[in-house]
């Protein structure tokens, strides 16, 4: 919990919090984890005809959409099966309604499903990384001649520092180096997907994802689509 409040402080101070999708798990979710999980799982079944289609075709779908809008995207709806054999880098313990998995500390993390599919956030993050980060940090987050490898960076940089760096930027200007990262604090293409991007890079850094597009992935959860639209504005 202490970690989360630090995070909240960072977010407030950099004034970016408004449109984070599934920004770190909401405090209080853990009142009764097992029960909460069951309830939400049931709900997500109702509300997950998976498609991100914006226009509901019938009343039932419309109702589902409404219900969705009221639903808490950060509610934990699923637990990782402890008995399941997983790659050692897979730190996921529980999943929120928006499809984002968390590690034991409540930080976003990638997840391998039983059928070999990766979670939605890893895939979404791959795409957003390509449009916003690749120009400097290179293909597959491996770095370039003028920006560091994020695969390496995330081995030491924690989630809070990651958010802060992306929001505020970073400068390393000296006689020998001119490295400058811009502030992405008011860039919706980055901030609406900041957790997606984090999860993708973490998947690369943990060795869960090779140098490839995570083509086999879970579908976009309906509630994620609602949140995305609200954040980016279309």
């Amino acid at each position: 919990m202490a970690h989360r409040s630090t995070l909240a402080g960072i977010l407030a101070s950099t004034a970016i919090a408004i449109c984070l999708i599934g920004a770190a798990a909401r405090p209080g979710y853990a009142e009764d984890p097992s029960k909460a999980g069951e309830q939400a799982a049931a709900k997500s079944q109702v509300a997950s005809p998976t498609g991100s289609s914006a226009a509901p075709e019938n009343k039932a779908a419309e109702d589902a959409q409404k219900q969705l809008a009221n639903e808490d995207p950060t509610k934990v709806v699923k637990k990782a099966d402890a008995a399941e054999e997983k790659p050692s880098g897979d730190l996921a313990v529980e999943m929120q309604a928006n499809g984002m998995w968390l590690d034991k500390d409540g930080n976003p993390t990638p997840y391998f499903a039983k059928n070999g599919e990766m979670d939605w956030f890893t895939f979404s993050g791959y795409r957003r990384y390509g449009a916003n980060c690749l120009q400097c940090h290179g293909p597959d987050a491996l770095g370039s001649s003028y920006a560091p490898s994020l695969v390496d960076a995330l081995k030491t940089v924690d989630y809070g520092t990651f958010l802060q760096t992306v929001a505020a930027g970073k400068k390393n200007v000296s006689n020998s180096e001119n490295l400058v990262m811009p502030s992405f604090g008011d860039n919706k293409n980055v901030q609406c997907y900041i957790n997606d991007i984090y999860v993708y890079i973490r998947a690369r850094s943990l060795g869960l994802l090779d140098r490839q597009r995570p083509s086999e992935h879970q579908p976009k959860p309906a509630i994620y689509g609602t949140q995305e639209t609200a954040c980016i504005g279309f």
Partner: protein
Amino acid sequence: MKHIGLAAATACLLAYSLPVMADDAAGAPKEVTGPTAAKLMQNPNDWVAQRGDYANTGYSKLDQITKDNVKNLQVAWTFSTGVLRGHEGSPLVIGDVMYVHTPFPNIVYALDLNNEGRIIWKYTPKQDPEVIPVMCCDTVNRGLAYDNGKVFLHQADTNVVALDAKTGQELWKVANGDPKKGATNTATVLPVNGKIIVGISGGEFGVQCHVTAYDENTGKRVWRAFSEGPDNELLVDPEKTTSLGKPIGKDSSLKTWEGDQWKTGGGCTWGWFSYDPQLNLFYYGSGNPSTWNPKQRPGDNKWSMTLWARNPDTGMAKWVYQMTPHDEWDYDGINEVPLVDQKVDGKERKLLVHFDRNGYGYTLDRTDGELLVAQHFDPAVNWSDYVQMDKSKADYGRPHVVAKYSTEHNGEDNNSKGICPAALGSKDEQPSAFSPKTGLFYVPTNHVCMDYEPFKVSYTPGQPYVGATLSMYPAPNSHGGMGNFIAWDATKGKIAWSDPEQFSAWGGALATAGDVVFYGTLEGYLKAVDAHSGKLLYKFKTPSGIIGNVMTYVHKGKQFVAVYSGVGGWAGIGLAAGLTDPNAGLGAVGGYAALNNYTALGGTLTVFSLPNQ
């Protein structure tokens, strides 16, 4: 200095920036004169423009170094630029002085060739480092220009600066754009008719790009012409400006954009400018429309991706030709437009040749923009199977797009696979050279393909506005490398010979009267090949990867060849990573290894000559 920078930026917001004079603000800048570039270009001993001459042929009449003796070439001297980032462009030589430039912070050195390269003067601009991350793809700069006793530098932060060639004293400085809105510069400038013509970058940031002319002596703006927008901003005459022989008509650009999307439309002008003194026209290509997601900007998006012929005195466009209407692949149309006179179908023509990112080698009549040849200059190209050459057809002059590789057709959130070339094009900014002796063009090319997946993005001023994710890899079912160095017959649209390269050939070429063609490679080799056959005659490994252009000059009767090394640029993105290998599981060879197994950063000028007899 910071104060001046801010003032300049503010002035820029008001659309008409005033030059900052080095002298008393009330007075005119110090008058500096000297021989004109046009005159010095007649003398092959000098290298007075980035591509050697106004025609941008990258050709030198010097012939001491020949295909027979080039094997004896050796290093004469070297110079460290003190900067690590990617070094594009080349030095200039005027008389006994060599002018060397660097990437950001854009230092300029004047070196004394009579005194083993001793530094005569050094100019270090003060620039806000905040411009660095706004520059897509590294802080490169494609070099200085010279005219009338002045050296012209177009800095990263878009400040255009005139320096006294003798002393390095700043004569005037003017801001050409606002980096806070994503406008930056990497290009050289064209000095012509007492003006300098300058372009601008920012296609990945939704900048409405333009070319602008400034008075060479005062820095005062003469005209500005945008790539997209209303006719009065384009500087076109709906009746007199033509496209493929027909008047372009009223609102030719506005009609091809949805709403006011042209205001963030890109069409940037960061390539090379060539000039024909007889026709008094200059030529350049405009870049990709913003964003990279084609679904988000319906229409042909004119006049992005277009070859332009303009009058340098008025800016008025004589003709335009849009190569890639409604771009779906980031085939940024900015590559060089060399001007040559050759026979096509038995008839002597004034030609313009252009190797576009989209993989087509175009030959046009430069007097009126008539399209003569459009053929693939890399056999891997597959996004389009032909350009319609039949004048009676409705789609005359347009590329026929193969649906499978159309990211517009396949749509948002769909990964279109196996598109050739990749977004960096069958060729990027690295300029080609032409030898009038062989009649061939020598072209450094990329042999890379991609998967391209567009999706919706929102626009924020000064922030990347990209909207697609790509993965790139060497062209499948080929030699496994990522580049070729080719010779091209522009009158027929045919490859004469092709040398495979392990990495993209990202260094600009030089052709000489000694029948030698020079170019640099990403691993750092300076290579000399036979102009007739492409046979490798000499190679030398410089301290870093080469993305600069080879140049040549004579000093005290002896011919020298020089090139910058210093890996970076867009090519540098793959430095650490290499490109993904689609055939990794099938035992593909080591051609896919990362470039950082071969070279590291660091800017050096290496100068070569033959041993003394």
